[in-house]
């Protein structure tokens, strides 16, 4: 048994979530979308773990399954030693204090009819975290922690800019002194100059409050800046996992390489070969046989169209699912 200091905060073990959808009228046919298929990873304490990939690859579903906002079909999610997939509602409610989420859209994730104060005070009342008289002071403290002034407590969400609203969203996630925060595209809706402000706020809070993040983003440059380790997803599966410098400086999986080469670097003196990229992400309803990426892959071999590659551990926490390294 490992010592508790080395034990990861979050361990996700063979997580799977399939959605069943019906298409067609009048004779509808049922399809299965493998949104998350056999995904395993862990998040260490005080670490930001990134999940990156294109839209529809299942990264948000992983985030939601970890919090059980969506019920996973199979697999386990451990927060320290507790398997949260087996908890009943009451136990789940108390463990949710330790894990919170920041949503993507700061415009739609706050109730427009409630003041910021009302939004932030309610969960404290529900969980009876402190005396009712103290709640307002705690909320004001919290708002100052995320860079807002005490005066905003009686304002409504529409009175704020996007960046300020995201700060409120962060304050809400911090209410219970959580250990893990799932940040689902938390800075994607913000302008570049505000994006950096929010990322630095999250970084400072991580140091100050010993937080860990599961950071979901489609923006590889932001992931590289904010995270220590990252997993790249494609059609519900991890294709590669490793530290950010391993993944982005020496990508192994052809898809990681494709993603990296497609991300425009803000420097006109760097020539990027955009011409080499072919095709689109296939529909998750009918992913290609074998390796899901093989129709777009420049290095595809015969075996790639027949068998899905096994996950290969390469040491130093690095792994890849590709026949080229088998």
């Amino acid at each position: 048994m490992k010592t508790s200091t080395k034990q990861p905060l979050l361990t996700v073990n063979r997580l799977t979530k399939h959605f069943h959808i019906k298409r067609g009228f009048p004779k509808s046919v049922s399809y299965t979308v493998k949104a998350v298929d056999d995904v395993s990873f862990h998040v260490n304490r005080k670490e930001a773990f990134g999940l990156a990939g294109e839209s529809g690859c299942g990264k948000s579903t992983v985030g939601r399954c970890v919090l059980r906002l969506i019920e996973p079909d199979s697999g386990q999610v451990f927060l320290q030693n507790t398997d949260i997939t087996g908890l009943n509602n009451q136990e789940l409610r108390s463990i949710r204090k330790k894990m919170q989420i920041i949503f993507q859209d700061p415009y739609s994730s706050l109730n427009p009819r409630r003041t910021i104060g009302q939004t932030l005070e309610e969960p404290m009342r529900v969980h009876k975290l402190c005396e009712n008289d103290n709640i307002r002071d705690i909320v004001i403290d919290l708002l100052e922690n995320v860079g807002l002034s005490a005066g905003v407590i009686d304002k409504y969400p529409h009175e704020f800019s996007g960046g300020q609203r995201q700060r409120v969203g962060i304050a809400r996630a911090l209410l219970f002194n959580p250990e893990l925060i799932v940040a689902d595209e938390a800075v994607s809706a913000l302008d570049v100059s505000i994006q950096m402000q929010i990322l630095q706020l999250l970084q400072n809070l991580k140091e100050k409050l010993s937080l860990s993040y599961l950071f979901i983003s489609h923006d590889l440059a932001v992931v590289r800046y904010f995270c220590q380790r990252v997993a790249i997803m494609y059609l519900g599966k991890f294709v590669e996992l490793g530290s950010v410098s391993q993944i982005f400086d020496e990508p192994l999986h052809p898809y990681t390489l494709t993603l990296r080469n497609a991300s425009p670097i803000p420097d006109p003196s760097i020539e990027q070969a955009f011409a080499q990229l072919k095709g689109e992400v296939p529909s998750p309803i009918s992913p290609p046989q074998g390796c899901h990426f093989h129709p777009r892959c420049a290095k595809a071999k015969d075996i790639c169209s027949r068998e899905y590659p096994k996950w290969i551990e390469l040491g130093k926490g690095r792994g890849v699912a590709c026949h080229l390294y088998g």
Partner: protein
Amino acid sequence: MKYILEVKNLSTAFKLQSGWYRATTDISFALRQNETLAVVGESGCGKSVTAFSLMGLLPEHGSRIDSGSALFKGEDLLTMPREKLRKIRGSAMTMIFQEPMTSLNPVLTVGSQIAEAVYYHMNVGKAAAKKRALELMDMVKIPDPKNRYNDYPHHLSGGMCQRIMIAMSLACEPDLVFADEPTTALDVTIQAQMIYLLNELKEKQQMSMVFITHDLGVVAHVADRVAVMYAGTIVETAPVADLFADPRHPYTRALLKSIPRLDKDNKDITPIQGMVPSIDNMPEGCRFFARCEKKDQCRPDEFPQLLPLKNSSNHQVRCLLCE
């Protein structure tokens, strides 16, 4: 060399409850043939308003053009009769919109939407228009155009819809295309394909392009010249290499320092503090003053002009401290 588009001192105002406020002030730029000007800035800085003003697409009520002129091949777009503008728009001057899925008509087939533009502007029959539409779909690399012609927008992916939009805007061999965040709604791999396609088509058709975006990474790979906008004004304009190698305006410098890069470990990133001033509370003088690093050496009361640098007339900056 003559300019395709020459915009001078364009100011556009919108009506809010408390009166008229300027969304853009004193916009001036010029565009040569086969040149791409990237207009870059944060949301609300007036990039799209500029394009909409020039295309005559501003809402009829609650908006007005306060001043300025915009010569498109020698004729002023802003004072032109509506009928004449309608003939130019969609043929000689077109626009690619941001959201491909919502900009297409959901109840018409994608092919017929392309053919419609050809039919109205090129004086051809329906059969010829269809033939031209199929050619265009092939040109923007839609696989199997004959079968895709009768598809509706919901049959196609976002990337394919954007190709349809591009085909539509190129239908009548325009001289000038406004592309308003054409890749923002797309995934990175599809975005890369679009950048490649637009660059290729620009060479082939010798057209000029105004490329509106907030993404400096995209700017670096599509633009010949760049205009950086902040709070309704152009603060700096320069050839793309100069702008990235030697940015002069404090906002441009701060912006370039605040974006993370994929090819670096980003140790030296510093965010811009503060917020963009709101439209009803614009400062009299320089609009970046409150957030500027060098504000101690500057004064807040004077509104700077967009002036060329002493040793490089191609590089213009709106800053009292830059020469």
